[in-house]
């Protein structure tokens, strides 16, 4: 436990002394803010129209504003092809390139502690990105009275999806000593995981369903609706376990092979 924390601290330290954390924070907050601002504008126009046409139905902030923001395709896409690969690419690749892996691997600390420490640090950075985007919604609570639960579920979904992708990214980073290759490989794999669901749009055959089930983004949908579906949560949690398990295997084989 203590060792995990030692590694995690060290990783967080390197994220926050290098520009990477700040670049990601700024970039993601800006884009998210822009998406949010757009949805707010649309929401305002729609409620104005509704008033003018005299219907004045109770406009639901959760349905009409929060959900469109959370399920915005661009946000999901950026997380998958940019944020996560940029966070995970250095985790192991850099240690292998500079030889510091030799220090970690010859210290009295288990592989799994190294892996968990690194993954948790990546998750913490990712969570801090999400935290800054959540500030946008804070402002809704100031002026309105939306239901906080679907929002929390939505963020839980983002966190789980991120955690799963970070685990896979950690694994890919452990396969190479080159950060760029780790990043490109991760983006490639994630894009595949993303588009796996396409055939299910026109096919009803089992294989298409299976592919859709494996697709990362598919499982996030239910969370945006404020529904906590155990099937989807289990998918992400299994992916986390799979990613971390593969990482530990690759660390082992690194020793046996090289």
């Amino acid at each position, binding site marked *: 436990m203590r*060792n995990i924390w030692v590694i995690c601290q060290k990783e967080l330290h390197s994220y926050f002394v290098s520009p990477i954390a700040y670049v990601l924070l700024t970039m993601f907050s800006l884009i998210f803010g822009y998406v949010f601002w757009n949805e707010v504008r649309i929401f305002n126009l729609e409620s104005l129209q509704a008033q003018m046409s005299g219907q004045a139905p109770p406009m639901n902030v959760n349905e009409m504003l929060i959900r469109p923001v959370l399920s915005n395709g661009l946000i999901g896409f950026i997380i998958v092809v940019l944020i996560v690969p940029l966070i995970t690419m250095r985790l192991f690749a850099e240690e292998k390139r500079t030889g510091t892996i030799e*220090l970690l*691997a010859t210290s009295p600390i288990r592989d799994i502690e190294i892996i968990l420490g690194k993954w948790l640090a990546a998750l913490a950075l990712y969570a801090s990105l999400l935290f800054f985007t959540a500030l946008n919604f804070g402002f809704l609570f100031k002026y309105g009275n939306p239901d906080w639960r679907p929002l929390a579920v939505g963020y839980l979904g983002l966190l789980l999806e991120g955690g799963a992708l970070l685990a896979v990214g950690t694994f890919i980073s452990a396969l190479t000593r080159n950060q760029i290759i780790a990043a490109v490989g991760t983006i490639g794999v994630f894009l595949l995981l993303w588009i796996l669901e396409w055939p299910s749009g026109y096919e009803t055959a089992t294989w298409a369903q299976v592919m859709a089930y494996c697709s990362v983004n598919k499982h996030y949908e239910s969370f945006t609706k404020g529904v906590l579906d155990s099937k989807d949560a289990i998918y992400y949690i299994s992916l986390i376990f799979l990613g971390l398990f593969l990482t530990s295997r690759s660390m082992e084989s690194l020793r046996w092979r*090289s």
Partner: protein
Amino acid sequence: MITVQGLTKRYAHTLAVDHISFEVQKGQIVGFLGPNGAGKTTTMRILTCFLPPSEGTATVAGFDVLDQPMEVKKRIGYLPETPPLYPEMEIGEYLTFVGKLKGMSGASLASRVEEVEERCAIADVRNKLIGKLSKGYRQRVGLAQAIIHNPEVLILDEPTAGLDPKQIIETRDLIRSLAPDHTILLSTHILPEVEQTCEQVLIINKGKLVATDSVHNLQNRARGAESVLLEVEGRNGAVDAQTIQHRLETVSGVSRVLFKETRSNRSVFEVESLKDRFIRGDLARAIVESGWNLNELRPSAVSLEEIFLQLTGGEKADEPAPAEAVVQGENQ
């Protein structure tokens, strides 16, 4: 303290270490000597549990590297060939991190970090980013990192690589000062280093152990006969080196006279005696009686270098580091 038996390591296409066996006793400093690619780093990586052996066994402090790696790792301090440093950390931060990795904490860690910084002469730069240090300072931080938890066994892969001559001497002193209560295995290609630092030497070539002995014995093995360096000055510059050489060769007990160089009317020779003959007195007399000046006469030490080259097949294994020359100079 370290026992290695039939240790073999195969990479995909290379046999890096080929059935080597040796033992290192507690408290010894052992030099691991060999040309590039001999398998030194590979052996050390196996001893530190970084790589598993393909065959054979290795135990450190009584624990097998395969069966009880955690116990081995707790007792080992390791300086890899490239010091494992994080450029974005300050020295103090880094040493604290390594200390925690090795299981230390709290006030004892903090005071140990300071102690090690003093010992490795990095205290004055402790707040500097490692990425901004020069090569020699990085090497020192690497060494500091290896001893932070006061391990029983130290494995140092070329600990003096990249250091300046003064620092090399300091590092050797540091290593020697660790000796009584640490067991040290250090690799190097620099021969004087072994002669000056180590008690015991392991010579490895192409994955095979070609000699294990004490430094003293190895030197004696090659010595047997006496070898003397002479500088002779002709009185009026008219005498040429050849005449001197012929005269020297007639001295009784001399087996061989090697002409080294001539500067103005001074010539330098290396003279070897027959086994168990003492020739210095006769040489001096012969020179003076022939009317020349004897400027210098001193025994030339048989260096490990010769033994090393003999054992590893005659080729010069490595460019001598510039620092080596300076250090040798200081010893004379």
